[in-house]
């Protein structure tokens, strides 16, 4: 095929709407007769609810309705595996900010109405420390106790292996809660439709899950509910359950009032009333032979899951599976426990447990290298997974393992060999350089079946419409889908359109998570486009009186390969199909091999594909102020095939900065009563353009076997490696091991004052 659109940098589809302000996000929608709604939230982190009085609020002029748990006709519950979270709390609240009631009416009166709602609480003891929560005798947050989830991984025999090791390093590492901080706070609009149906518009990444929660709450068939994904202002794992919660409440209000109802969160509600990244405490032990061969890793993880289970079971398993880092370690033992605490619930956040365990694993690599007197890059190269390696969960990597290439390229671009000496020297400002590697499974893995549906509709003028069950939440999935269809059908990109996800029209393909959009979604789109191509070629062959194999599709034409002047416009072929009664809409279903693993040991084949990356970061630390400045950042990622180069760079650059935020600036804080102290950007420090380095993305392409054109995905992966590289660079600068994130100025100064009292590592 001639000039390919796959592999180029292509501007974002429908980008013009975004730069002109024409794009409509949910909170921009205006429906005739639309009402607004807002929730009354609990004042306590843990309390029984004795009484909720709403009569006065309901009488306020401008208020159309006030709903409590009593008004939910169906299931007052939500969750992923364990439905332990109520849409509106009835008897008990378990975190500050939990929803109690919904006020519906004119936008201007909502705040006043909320003030008129009186709640009588009986405070209960607040449990905030996850280790205390798991200890004997802790106040129970849920009937079943405070252990949200537990899972184990056993590969080989770690104790026997440790006995054979020449060097063993051990450490405890901590990471804090991170907030997604998408610029668009969550918003939903519920619109009553004919026949008792209701449509939910929202920026989201899991429309089918939202549909099920809404339908269950309303007590109606799933197909009475339609969820349409609106232009989404970022999600990063966050616009999932909270959208289901808001959607259900808005739908209840819409059906009660007969009018469209919008709920849009303030920034405080977005932080406090929606999921966050799990905080983690990780004990990690690594043993190796004198020449640097890692024989054993023993990892014990406690995740702080907050008040409700949300996606904790899945985060736990993903953290478990990735706890040994991207290395071929023959003996691994790992345990992950998630604890309930009286804080905002933790759920999916870009990386999904992998950033936390990667930080610990990569700090251990550096600490091990120091003990061995070995170069940190050499140690990583020695143990890095390659084709034929077996992961911590015993899956043999069969093809497209580009980790080593990312190590070499990142090191070469960053000048690792030249720079790594001369770090950690004295003086007020100290320089350091750090490296970190990561790998992460793509596809739903242990979370369930991974199957995606897509369609490719040909129009009589030769233009194409693509639909897929996976969502573009800003990352550029739709543009990638368009490129794939354009390439396969030879239709110019300008004549390809991609429709939004809509539960009425696009097939249920599960959640758009796990960095699966390009790999899994793109594959389904490619399959649909191939089906369309086959039909086109068959018809054109008969029109041109050649064999199908003699034909090529390009520039909107079907061309005879050896005689390019013999061609027919694609439009003509589509017309011919239509007028001979043949279908011109093509659907495809791409199902990945099922994950098969032992539930007790988590040994087996779990992921269909993997992404790999290596970051190198140079920092400067001011030892008087504790401030860390990033001097240089190189981020190499093996993505299999970069379908849209510019978009891949954007994911590397943006994902890295989220990892830098986790590593340096961001942490949700609570006081001793469970009040979230920094629910807005004044005190929750999202990196600004002044904080961000000029990340240098390096794209490595070691094709995978599953994804379209060998693509493997990238969305989440830069987060882990950036945070870990930063920690390693600071450790190198100070000559003291970093053991917690974020590396705040206070923590840096603590590290410096403890220098000499702790063993150097």
């Amino acid at each position, binding site marked *: 095929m001639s000039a390919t659109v796959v592999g180029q*940098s292509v*501007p*974002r589809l429908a*980008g*013009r*709407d*975004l*730069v*002109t*302000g*024409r*794009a*409509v*996000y949910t*909170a*921009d929608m*205006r429906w005739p007769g639309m009402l607004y709604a807002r929730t009354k939230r609990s004042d306590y982190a843990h309390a029984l609810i004795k009484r909720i009085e709403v009569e006065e609020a309901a009488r306020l002029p401008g208020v159309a309705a006030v709903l409590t748990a009593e008004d939910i006709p169906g299931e007052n519950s939500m969750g992923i595996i364990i439905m332990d979270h109520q849409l509106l709390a009835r008897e008990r609240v378990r975190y500050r900010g939990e929803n109690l009631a919904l006020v519906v009416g004119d936008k201007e009166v909502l705040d006043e109405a909320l003030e008129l709602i009186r709640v009588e609480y009986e405070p209960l003891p607040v449990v905030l420390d996850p280790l205390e929560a798991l200890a004997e005798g802790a106040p129970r947050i849920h009937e079943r106790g405070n252990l949200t989830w537990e899972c184990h991984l056993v590969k080989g025999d770690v104790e026997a292996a440790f006995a054979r090791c020449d060097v063993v390093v051990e450490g405890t590492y901590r990471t804090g809660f991170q907030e*997604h*901080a*998408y*610029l*668009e*706070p969550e918003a939903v609009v519920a619109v009553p439709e004919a026949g008792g149906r209701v449509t939910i518009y929202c920026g989201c990444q899991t429309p089918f899950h939202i549909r099920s929660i809404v339908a269950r709450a309303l007590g109606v068939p799933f197909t009475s509910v339609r969820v349409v994904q609106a*232009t*989404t*202002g*970022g999600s*990063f794992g966050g616009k999932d359950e909270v959208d289901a919660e808001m959607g259900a409440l808005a739908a209840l209000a819409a059906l009660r009032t007969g009018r469209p109802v919008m709920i849009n969160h*303030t*920034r405080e509600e977005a932080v406090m009333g929606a999921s966050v990244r799990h905080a983690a405490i990780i004990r990690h032990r690594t043993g190796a032979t004198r020449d640097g061969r890692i024989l054993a890793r023993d990892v014990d993880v406690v995740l702080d899951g907050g008040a409700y289970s949300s996606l904790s079971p899945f985060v736990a398993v993903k953290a478990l599976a990735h706890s040994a880092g991207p290395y071929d370690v023959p003996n691994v033992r790992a345990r992950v426990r998630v604890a309930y605490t009286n804080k905002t619930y933790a759920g999916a956040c870009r990386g999904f447990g992998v950033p936390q365990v990667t930080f610990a694993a990569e700090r251990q690599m550096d600490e091990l290298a120091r003990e061995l007197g070995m170069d940190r890059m050499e140690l990583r190269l020695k143990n890095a997974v390659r084709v034929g390696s077996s992961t911590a969960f015993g899956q043999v990597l069969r093809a497209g393992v580009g980790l080593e290439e990312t190590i070499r390229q990142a090191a070469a671009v960053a000048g690792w060999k030249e720079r790594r000496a001369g770090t950690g020297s004295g003086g007020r400002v100290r320089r350091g350089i750090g490296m970190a590697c990561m790998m992460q499974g793509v596809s739903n893995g242990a979370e369930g079946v991974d199957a995606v549906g897509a369609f490719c509709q040909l129009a009589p003028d030769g233009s194409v419409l693509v639909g897929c069950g996976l969502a573009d*939440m*800003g*990352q*550029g999935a739709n543009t990638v889908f368009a490129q794939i269809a354009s390439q396969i059908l030879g239709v110019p990109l300008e004549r390809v359109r991609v429709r939004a996800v809509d539960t009425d029209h696009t097939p249920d393909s599960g959640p758009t998570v796990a960095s699966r959009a390009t790999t899994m979604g793109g594959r389904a789109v490619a399959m649909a486009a191939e089906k369309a191509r086959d039909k086109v070629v068959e018809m054109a062959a008969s029109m041109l009186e050649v064999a199908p194999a003699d034909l090529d599709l390009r520039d909107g034409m079907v061309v005879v390969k050896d005689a390019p002047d013999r061609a027919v416009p694609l439009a003509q072929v589509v017309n011919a199909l239509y007028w001979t009664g043949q279908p011109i809409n093509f659907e495809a279903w791409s199902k990945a091999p099922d994950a098969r693993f032992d539930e007790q040991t988590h040994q087996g084949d779990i992921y269909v594909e993997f992404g790999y990356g290596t970051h190198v970061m140079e920092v400067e630390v001011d030892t008087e102020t504790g401030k860390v400045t990033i001097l240089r950042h190189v981020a190499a990622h093996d993505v299999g095939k970069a379908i849209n180069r*510019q*978009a891949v*760079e*954007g994911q*590397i*650059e*943006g*994902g*890295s*900065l*989220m990892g830098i935020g986790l590593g340096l600036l961001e942490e949700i804080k609570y006081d001793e009563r469970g009040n979230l102290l920094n629910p*807005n*950007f*004044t005190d929750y420090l*999202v990196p*600004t*353009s*002044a*904080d*961000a380095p*000029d*990340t240098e993305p390096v794209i490595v392409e070691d094709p995978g076997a599953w994804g379209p054109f060998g693509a493997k995905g990238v969305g989440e992966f830069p987060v882990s490696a950036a945070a870990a590289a930063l920690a390693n660079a600071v450790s190198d600068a100070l000559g003291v091991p970093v053991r917690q994130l974020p590396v705040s100025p206070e923590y840096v100064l603590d590290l410096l004052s403890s220098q000499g009292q702790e063993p150097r590592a």
Partner: protein
Amino acid sequence: MSGAGDRVWLNMVVNGRPVQVSVRPDARLIDVLRDDLGLTGTKEGCSRGECGACTVLLDGEAVNSCLVLALKAEGREVLTIEGLARDGQLHPLQEAFLRHGAVQCGYCTPGMILAAKALLDRHPHPTREEIRRGLSGNLCRCTGYKKIVDAVEEVARGGVRP
């Protein structure tokens, strides 16, 4: 001159056109733009003037419209993102943002582009560092800022036809 009830008239020029709106005295500029004038290109991200998503130009100066009382715009010129393109022709910043991949989810984009315009109107040839500092009042969670800075730098260099 007052309107009905406790409202007052607000006269301003928005995107080159004079408008007259009846507003409450405590109305924020962002609400008047989005709700009264239907200009929803200006976004609300934090309501505290921290994220910059609500950035508009008030007499050429970048302001957080979530913090500006609407009446402060009396007799003044407001430029929102909708006013940047002329006769369907994108402004060089809009073109550059698209071409460089500086737009992902797009929510920060209207405010970011206007902040960049205000920066370049004041400092036509900023260094990369100055661009970063000049845009530091506008948060972006998707891009990592690099391609945004690339786009602004290119426009500053005059690489795009004005």
